[in-house]
């Protein structure tokens, strides 16, 4: 067991998120394989990887939603799986592929999440109103979340993750299904949050977005970290997308196949 982290030379404060040997198997497939990752405090960290790389599994294990078969997750220095309640206190989560309590209206849902965290009602109500206003959801009023569009749902989930002013924010695919205008708003909110001393970890398929937004990046494939560190180091002069394809491999030349897909041929 390493003490504070393997590289004690540069960073005096403990990492906002430290994953140590995280492993998860589903039946015979190993989704996440002894994964180590350090997210420095105050960083804007992007996690990229191909479909099925284990991003969601990793982030679920890092946030207490999925129990790892082995390994530890340290949230702001607290061992999440040793004392989940304590570690979750300063952690905000936007899970992907998870339903919301969607028979509530937007304000009700955000308030509910705050109250679950034991916040006083008047604080929750003020913050919920402010968040929904900033995210452009105030006009939805008492519409139930079940009737929201996909993008609105993402935004209200983000509001839920933010309502208790966490120190670490873990967002799984926060920009999926979000329109460009809302995307800009979310980027602005997240940027201000990091400037104010918060730490963001987000996963995404969109390399351009990660390149523009994040200062650190980790490339994950087949449940392992292929490269991680400051953005400049990882992409090494090239564009992130090129570096990603180079690291992950598996790009297939499809010239000549799938001819039947061309609409000139009749079925």
């Amino acid at each position, binding site marked *: 067991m390493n003490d504070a982290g393997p590289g004690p030379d540069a960073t005096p404060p403990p990492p906002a998120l430290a994953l140590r040997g995280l492993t998860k198997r589903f039946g015979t497939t190993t989704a996440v394989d002894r994964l180590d990752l350090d997210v420095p405090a105050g960083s804007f960290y992007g996690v990229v990887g191909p479909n099925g790389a284990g991003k969601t599994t990793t982030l679920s294990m890092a946030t207490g939603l999925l129990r790892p078969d082995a390994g530890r997750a340290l949230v702001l220095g607290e061992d999440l799986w040793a004392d989940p309640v304590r570690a*979750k206190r300063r952690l905000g*989560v936007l899970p992907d592929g*998870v339903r919301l309590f969607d028979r509530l*209206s937007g304000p009700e849902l955000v308030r509910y*999440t705050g*109250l679950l*965290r034991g916040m006083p009602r008047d604080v929750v109500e003020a913050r919920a109103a402010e968040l929904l206003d900033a995210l452009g959801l105030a006009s939805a009023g008492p519409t*139930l979340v079940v009737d929201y569009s996909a993008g609105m749902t993402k935004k209200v989930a983000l509001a839920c993750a933010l309502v208790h002013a966490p120190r670490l924010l873990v967002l799984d695919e926060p920009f999926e299904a979000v329109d460009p205008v809302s995307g800009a708003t979310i980027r602005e909110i997240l940027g201000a949050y990091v400037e104010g001393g918060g730490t963001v970890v987000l996963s995404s398929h969109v390399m351009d977005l990660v390149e523009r937004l994040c200062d650190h990046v980790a490339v994950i494939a087949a449940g392992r970290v292929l490269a991680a560190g400051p953005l400049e180091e990882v992409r090494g002069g090239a564009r992130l997308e090129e570096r990603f394809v180079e690291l992950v491999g598996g790009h297939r030349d499809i010239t000549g196949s799938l001819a039947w897909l061309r609409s000139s041929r009749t079925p």
Partner: protein
Amino acid sequence: MAAVVPDPVSTSLPASTRAPRPELVLVRLKLALLAGGLRRSPWQVVALVLGALAGLVVVGLLGSGLVALRWQPVDVAAPVVVGVGSVAVLGWAVLPLVAFGVDETLDPSRFATFAVPRRALVVGLLGAGLVGVPGAATLLLALATTVTWSRSVPAALLALVAGVVAALTCVAASRATTTAAASLLRARRTRDVLAIVGGVAAVSVGPLVNVLTSRLAGGAVDGALGVARALAAVAGWTPLGLAWAAPADAAAGRWGLAAVRFALAVAVLVLVLAGWGAALRRAEAQPGTHAAAGRSGRPGVLDAVVRRLPDRPAVAVAQRCLRYWRRDPRYLVSAASLAVVPLLLVVLPLSQGSSVGPWLLAGGPLAAFAAGWSLHNDVAYDHSAFAAHVATGLRGRDDRAGRVLAAACWQLPVLLALTLAGALLAGRADLLPAVLGAATGCYGAGLGVSSVASALTPYAAPPPGANPFQTPRGAAAATLVAQFASSAAVTVLALPALVPAVVAVLGSSWAGWTALAAGLLTGPLWTVVGIRQGGAVLDRRLPEVLAAVSRA
């Protein structure tokens, strides 16, 4: 039943250029899904084997009865076959609404994007409905009537065809009623009222028919056979019994009558299928959860009460649960079945011709039992939204307490009213302490056991926005085990109040006060113990519970 596991390759696209009929593809898809489920979990194999064994026992018993009827005169065999057959059709049509739900492995809405012709969809789903223990058992028994009516070759042939028609009618009826009821429930304006009225009506139709016909037939107990014959004669002309009665006519040589009934039976099947198709079309037009546009979250009366409670996470959970009790059809169905329990207790004895009195007394405690126990899978109704409770680090006991608080908020007054009304209507005000004690004991034990059970053995439930009458695939066995174990536990824990209550009913009314004391003591005790223990279990198993309820 191991023979149903197909080669997975056979379910992929065929190499031949001719596309297979969509009907067959659907049946094959159901088999593949069944096989996939079996491969995923050994418990599903156990479940299927147990289910198949139970099915075999039923088929064996009833089937041998049908074979034995071959050597009885037609006028003895006919009422039996028609009566039992009609009950079977009724059961298929009504039971999924109130009890077991319908196996929606092939949820029709999933085929919305595939441009499957609705006709093919209906036929294919009908065929797929026969795959599975209940479908197969019904088909086998329906075919067994061929033996019963093998008094001549033409009669046996008609019995064979009519048997298939009857079995298909069963499956189609269950689909039609649940699809129609689900789409009705989705409509905002009507759903609150309809959930309750529909549930009550669905359950009471059968017994009410019984009451009416037995009254019409004189209802004397000595003429039991006569009554049964009269009932069967009536049923033979209803949509429930036409297909069963046709071959009986043929066996008796009344071919004209047989032809009429058979034609009508086919017409009934076609009509039921058309009704199902229409309900599907309506569901397609407003798919899934987006049906009721403009729903809004207005605060209700109970919210105002809860708002006055202190800012505690448990109170927040309770407030959220109360909103769900009002806004979610699945909760509405669950609440409606609470109203059905006492109604059954009045109607059933009436239909047997016995006095209602003692049953009225039992109404309150039984409803209390059902209400407390109904929370035993509450987490599963959250589906993966339960992740919010996990991610926020909510304490298990707050989660438990909130759910109990919300249910008790509206159930306690209802149960109190039911119990009081029962005792007063039965004219036994002296037994009030006994029934109140029994009801309190049952309700407290139910809440306590539910609080532990929903953390310990959550099983998949219909996801939000889905047909509230469906049971997710592969959940049947886990469902049965969890339901049986939890109801047994409630019974045992309620014994301290139930035993003196029964003693009081049997004659020593002083025991009623003992029952009341025991109920008031053990009820809250079990609830508090359940919330604490269940909370501790939930704290330990949060990710596992989340995984269990996120399935389906």
